């Protein structure tokens, strides 16, 4: 009973979103750090892939076991784990293809997603606590 206490809420899925957001943050920070490295190509974590996997797991198990989408559980061959090398940008004369504005914008969006997931998860926990303690 106790492990399934959270099964009816969105807390497991939101936990996975938080993990993904934090991992993606480090990859994007690495891109910005390498802005002047010759020959560096952009890396990113595939957000669309992550959302697809999350959706599949939630529809199959009804949200009970969102842990299988975690990056830690994904094998190295999994496309979600591979950092995607982006070839869309221009290539500059020092053989990099980084657009600084785009990286900062992606980081901002990631940050907003992270804060959103965190706030909603905290709210869900507080609601459960209210129900358990019967104190409104």
């Amino acid at each position: 009973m106790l492990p399934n206490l959270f099964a009816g809420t969105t807390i497991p899925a939101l936990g996975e979103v938080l993990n993904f957001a934090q991992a993606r943050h480090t990859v994007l920070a690495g891109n910005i750090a390498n802005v002047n490295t010759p020959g560096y190509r952009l890396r990113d974590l595939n957000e669309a892939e992550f959302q697809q996997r999350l959706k599949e797991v939630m529809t199959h198990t009804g949200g009970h076991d969102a842990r299988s989408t975690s990056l830690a559980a994904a094998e190295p061959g999994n496309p979600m784990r591979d950092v995607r090398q982006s070839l869309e940008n221009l290539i500059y004369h020092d053989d990099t293809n980084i657009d600084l504005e785009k990286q900062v914008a992606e980081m901002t969006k990631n940050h907003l997603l992270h804060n959103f997931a965190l706030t909603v998860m905290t709210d869900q926990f507080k609601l459960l606590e209210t129900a358990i303690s019967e104190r409104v």
Partner: protein
Amino acid sequence: MTPITGIPLSPPVQPSLPVQPASHPVGAQPFKNVLLEALGQVNTMQTQANEAVQQLVTGGDVNPAEVLTTLQKADMSFRMMLQIRNKLVQAYQEINNIRI
């Protein structure tokens, strides 16, 4: 000296209106139904809020502000229901404590 005659009693009181069993005014329901319906509504709102959050994190086409509003509405109605339940339990306990 007149003989004692019986004291006439006034005729027994007749009810002015015919007695009817207590009936519901038009449009009202038993309180139990009202409560059950309200519980169902709170549950529906919770399910809607959960679905909205799920759609947002799996990349659905839903507005984050809408999701937050739905969540808050569900929260608020849950807390309201909890408070009503607390008051009902309190009232029941008070009635239990009435010494006959």
